[in-house]
């Protein structure tokens, strides 16, 4: 059956700013959906308030509306444009909720808009836990005993009836927000109260907790002909009790027999059919009893694409959002091609001949006082995925992708040996649970004990145990004596050369050399949806240590773009936006583009983005081996945030060309001493500063600089451990704190310009000329991290004189640093005098914001400047400026109820939104301006 011919124009609703529980996976799905619909000749309009997304780029949609996600905005769009249908399933729960709101207001009917890809009743059922439960019982699918409460009294009665432990889940919330376990009756009242409050309709579901049951997810697709296929099975290594977004997950499911899997598959299909009649994607979560009965109960169903479907798409190669969009248009699965093989049918179920492991990335250190224990409410801010030919390899690669100063799991001398501390950590799982599992096994704590505490399936524990016994075997040798089979066994299991070097007490380079001598090279395998049954066209690779290499090097000139790894506070989707534009620009310039990244949520790891995708850790060893294989003209490091940038030094050392700004410059800008000398030479003012290595030196220095002082370690991201101190006592304390976490690190003290206004400029420079693409003024006073500030573009009350200083300094610094590409400079303005605070010769967080506000392809230009394809004087600077654009920082403090919203020099926001205002009398601006000092702390 062909697609519905009455639909010519579709509105896609995005998910808004990044918050915990709703991240850039929806940029991936929204971008895919837009591309998929445009392939069909559909005119795509898109609404999203998040400027850091690819989906809101003119390359993605025909009409982009950077508006707040409200029914007023929808009304405005529908008034302006003929929209035939709305696709609300690509923007998470936010988009679904907005679609329901508009439905209730009658907007869709008023404008004759059809809702596709979902039906409202299905959303209703899946979000209303009581209705869901009733339906499941009706269709014979097991659920945990439970009930709903709309009042405190009803809640108390239910608890009486069900008994403890219990789970309280508020209806209609995101990422498990407000959900909690109640182990003891005395905690119940408080948690019930919180749950009722966090539900927008003040309703909670109270379930009997099935803590410790095995947890699985299935990703489904259905067409209008009612064909249902399972794209992926995902097993949570962390069993029921930890939110799936905070769990280590594995695909395919590794500990399910076919009989149990097929029962689960049947249940999932039945559930999707029961909730409503719609064509699109669906995620179903199950719990399985870990006993002989293997009883299966349904946990929840989400009738939309999700974080898990993004993961499933990357895990299998089957682009769920892309196909779901076509199904929403009326296609049936049998009419569509498998997007990877291009020769077989889209109606099939992908099969994997590798394993993927996803590990979440947390940022607890940003939330002082936060409860760090993992539970029902998601707390992670990002994730990394490792692909390997076996579970152990995938696990090691995922650990190497995390960038938490570990070289993988184990073999880095960082393990704990205190039994009590380890056991305590296993009882109260946090971000380091996996590492402490390893420590516990290594220490010889019996499996029975570990299993009783964690309920983790013994198969996974045994896999870690095997790694430890392999390490013990390796430790018996030296680099000279290690047998080839043993080294190979380690490499096949994902050990980095650094880990092997640690075990053999030698240098990483010696291990590399040994491997080279033995011909033990990485090979690259294809992710092809079909376990090699059919030839595949799509160049989506991962590395392993086996016989055959499938990645064939072409003769084209090529460039490697390094991605930004897992999202974290201070480094998020903005850098993925930059990487994707870098790829597109390099393609336009005639390069074969090679993307390396390990974040499954992103557009950069969509196999449709670069010419070749290596889904690999942004970790030196992997990158080096890819570069050795591909032999590119060079590597672009300035688009992937600090992750990519910090690899510059090694690339330089190994003689690999860095395209754009050279390593020396990157280093010069990072090294405060060298940079200040440069400023001095240029006659550019900067706050008095100094660097120290001990608390005593700090106090000494403070006497010359004077308080308040800004104290921070050098070489950090997002203002990590940055603090303003006002007296010697505070100074001493903070310096000791920093040195505890980062021993041997240099500490910088800057005189803090109290009451100054902050501003920043982004520019493109080719070494000769500089183009300032935007100057932003922060609404909050200096002292709040730029990422957490409201920024106004262009500056709204700086004097002509101050602006001229900013322009002059930006150009001169960019040229003096021999910048080739992007540079961001931060300023403090006090008494009309401009001081330079720092310069970052790389794409900054604000570049996408400026590009969106001015509707100009700045990253594209910058990339071509890096490649030497364009000169700054060729650029036609023509920003589309109407009034002001405000960058709004968005926080996820609601996920940490114990933490006060306090802002300071350390960044805490998870996302951003853009708002356009015509003039400064705008009520939104006035409100923000009047509250500018509200959250300032030190």
């Amino acid at each position, binding site marked *: 059956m062909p697609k519905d011919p009455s639909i010519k124009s579709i509105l896609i609703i995005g998910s808004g700013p990044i918050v915990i529980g709703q991240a850039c996976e929806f940029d991936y799905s929204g971008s895919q959906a837009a591309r998929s619909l445009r392939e069909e000749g559909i005119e795509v309009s898109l609404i999203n308030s998040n400027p850091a997304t690819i989906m809101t780029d003119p390359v993605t949609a025909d009409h982009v509306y950077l508006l707040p996600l409200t029914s007023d905005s929808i009304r405005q769009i529908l008034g302006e444009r003929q929209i035939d249908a709305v696709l609300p399933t690509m923007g998470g729960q936010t988009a679904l909720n907005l679609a329901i709101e508009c439905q209730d207001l009658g907007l869709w009917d008023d404008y004759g808009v059809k809702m596709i890809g979902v039906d409202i009743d299905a959303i209703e059922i899946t979000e209303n836990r009581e209705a869901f439960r009733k339906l499941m019982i009706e269709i014979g699918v097991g659920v945990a005993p439970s009930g709903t409460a709309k009042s405190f009294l009803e809640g108390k009665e239910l608890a009486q009836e069900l008994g403890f432990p219990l789970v309280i889940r508020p209806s209609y919330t995101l990422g498990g927000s407000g959900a909690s376990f109640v182990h003891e009756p005395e905690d119940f009242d408080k948690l019930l109260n919180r749950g009722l409050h966090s539900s927008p309709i003040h309703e909670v579901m109270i379930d009997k907790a099935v803590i410790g049951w095995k947890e699985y997810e299935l990703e489904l697709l259905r067409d209008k002909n009612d064909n249902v296929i399972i794209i992926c099975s995902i097993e949570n290594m962390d069993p029921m009790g930890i939110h799936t977004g905070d769990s280590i997950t594995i695909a395919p499911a590794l500990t399910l027999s076919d009989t149990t899997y097929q029962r689960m598959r049947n249940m999932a299909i039945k559930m999707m059919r029961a909730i409503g009649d719609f064509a699109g994607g669906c995620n179903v979560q199950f719990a399985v009893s870990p006993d002989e009965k293997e009883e299966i109960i349904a946990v929840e169903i989400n009738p939309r694409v999700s974080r898990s479907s993004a993961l499933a798409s990357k895990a299998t190669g089957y682009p769920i959002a892309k196909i779901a969009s076509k199904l929403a248009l009326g296609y049936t699965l049998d009419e569509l091609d498998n997007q990877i093989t291009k020769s077989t049918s889209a109606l099939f179920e992908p099969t994997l*001949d590798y394993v993927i492991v996803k590990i979440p990335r947390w940022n607890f250190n940003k939330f002082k006082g936060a409860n760090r224990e993992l539970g029902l409410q998601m707390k992670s801010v990002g994730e990394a995925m490792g692909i390997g030919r076996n579970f152990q390899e995938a696990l090691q690669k995922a650990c190497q992708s995390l960038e938490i100063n570990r070289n993988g799991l184990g073999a880095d001398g960082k393990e704990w040996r205190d039994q009590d501390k380890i056991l305590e950590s296993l009882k109260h799982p946090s971000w380091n649970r996996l590492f402490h599992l390893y420590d516990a096994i290594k220490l010889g704590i019996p499996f029975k004990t570990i299993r009783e505490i964690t309920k983790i399936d013994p198969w996974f524990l045994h896999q870690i145990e095997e790694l430890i016994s392999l390490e013990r075997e390796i430790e018996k040798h030296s680099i000279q004596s290690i047998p080839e089979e043993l080294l190979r066994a380690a490499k096949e299991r994902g050990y980095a050369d650094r880990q092997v070097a640690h075990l053999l007490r030698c240098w990483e380079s010696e291990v590399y050399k040994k491997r080279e001598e033995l011909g033990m090279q990485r090979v690259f395998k294809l992710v092809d949806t079909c376990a090699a049954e059919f030839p595949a066209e799509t160049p989506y690779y991962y590395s392993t240590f086996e016989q055959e290499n499938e990645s064939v090097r072409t003769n084209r000139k090529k460039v490697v773009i390094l991605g930004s790894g897992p999202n974290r506070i201070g480094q998020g989707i903005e850098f993925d936006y930059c990487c994707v534009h870098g790829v597109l620009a390099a393609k336009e310039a005639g390069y074969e583009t090679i993307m390396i990244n390990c974040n499954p949520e992103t557009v950069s790891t969509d196999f449709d983005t670069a010419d070749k995708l290596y889904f690999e850790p942004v970790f030196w060893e992997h990158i080096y081996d890819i570069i050795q294989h591909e032999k590119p003209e060079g590597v672009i490091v300035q688009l992937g945030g600090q992750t990519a940038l910090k690899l510059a030094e090694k690339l330089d050392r190994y003689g690999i060309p860095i395209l754009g700004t050279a390593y020396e410059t990157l280093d010069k800008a990072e090294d405060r001493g060298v940079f200040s000398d440069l400023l001095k030479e240029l006659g550019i003012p900067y706050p008095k500063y100094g660097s120290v290595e001990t608390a005593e030196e700090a106090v000494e220095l403070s006497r010359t600089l004077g308080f308040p002082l800004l104290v921070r370690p050098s070489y950090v991201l997002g203002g990590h451990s940055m603090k303003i101190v006002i007296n010697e006592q505070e100074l001493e304390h903070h310096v000791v704190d920093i040195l505890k976490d980062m021993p041997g690190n240099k500490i910088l003290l800057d005189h803090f310009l109290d009451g100054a206004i902050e501003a920043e400029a982004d520019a493109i420079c080719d070494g000769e000329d500089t183009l300032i693409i935007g100057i932003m003024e922060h609404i909050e006073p200096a002292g709040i991290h730029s990422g957490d500030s409201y920024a106004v573009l262009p500056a709204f009350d700086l004097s002509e004189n101050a602006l001229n200083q900013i322009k002059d300094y930006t150009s001169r610094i960019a040229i003096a640093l021999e910048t080739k590409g992007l540079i961001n400079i931060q300023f403090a303005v006090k008494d009309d005098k401009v001081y330079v605070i720092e310069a970052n010769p790389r794409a900054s967080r604000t570049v996408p914001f400026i590009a969106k506000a001015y509707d100009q392809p700045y990253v594209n230009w910058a990339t071509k400047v890096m490649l030497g394809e364009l000169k700054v004087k060729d650029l036609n600077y023509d920003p589309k400026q109407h009034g002001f654009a405000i960058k709004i920082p968005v926080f996820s403090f609601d996920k940490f109820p114990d933490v006060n919203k306090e802002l300071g020099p350390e960044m805490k926001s998870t996302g951003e939104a853009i708002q356009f205002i015509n003039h400064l009398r705008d009520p939104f601006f006035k409100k923000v301006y009047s509250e500018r000092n509200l959250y300032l702390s030190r």
Partner: protein
Amino acid sequence: MKFKPSSSAVLVLEDGTIFHGLAAGKIGTTTGEIAFNTGMTGYQEIFTDPSYYGQILIMTTPHIGNYGVDEDEFESGSVNISGLVSNKFSEIFSRAKANQSIDEYFKERDVVGITEVDTRALVRHIREKGAMNAIISSEIDDISELKSRLGKVPSMEGLELASKVSTKEPFTYGDAESHEFKVAVLDLGVKQNILRCLAERGCYMKVFPHNTPFQEMETWNPDGYMLSNGPGDPSAMPEPTRTVTNILEHNRPTFGICLGHQVMAQASGLQTEKMHHGHRGINHPILNLHTGKGEITSQNHGFMVNRTSAENTENIQITHIHLNDKSVAGIKRKDKPAFSVQYHPEASAGPHDSRYLFDDFIALMKKEKYGVNS
């Protein structure tokens, strides 16, 4: 636990390609036709499926053995693959229901395997070069010796194998007391789950050896005939083909699965042919041409019905096609109460999307027996 890899093993293909790995299961030597299965679950059901008789099987999913072996989940009384090639062979298993590890089970049943092989490279090789014979050994490392043994292995083409796995004596299955239909099963290598699926639907069965003549089965007075799955080349099976021809001549309700489908096709005058490398897995897409709906199916076959001959035979209607290569996946006789499918509606391992075919068979028997449409 000590890290101790097992001893080495080698796999040699008919075209001389060699893969090295480690021993899995019993230490020994084995030969067969090499084939690959892409299923991610169900290794136990697959290894005991009689249709795999004579086949060295490559499992593409990297970990085999994770959930051990459960005595309730066998598809026959024995392991039917002649050897296993895997990437990771897990001696450790985790399942409350399981009785033993796959390694223990293999050792007990004398199954030879090789693991730590780049199975993906091997599959790509087979995909290009086609099915061929192979030898695995974990006891002989002299390649020329292995090649010489391999040379003596007969080709699968023209090979009759049903007799190796079919029951020697008839036996009954299901509820003898209360049942709605009696089904005679022509056992060419029947999977347990076909019998279970029919028993669940009120059938009492008598399972006959592969070479049983029609008259002998007919004396039991069945309401319908089930032609089972099984191994080998259908064109080398004149006896079962004759039996099925007789069943059809007598207008008996008939349902064929896999090899049974191929035999029914032959009995209807169609040709069968050897495939390049077969269909084996649990994710194969089928389109039901009657309803227009898709089914995800379990498949395991190296031979198939020739499509042209099916299209050009007047009494044959193609009812199902394979969506990937458009091959014939199901046929029905326009003139007889008989239909058959190339895939496995009983699907163990595999999805249950096609179980409705058993209901269709029941409806067919009902119609013939009572003269009504259900």
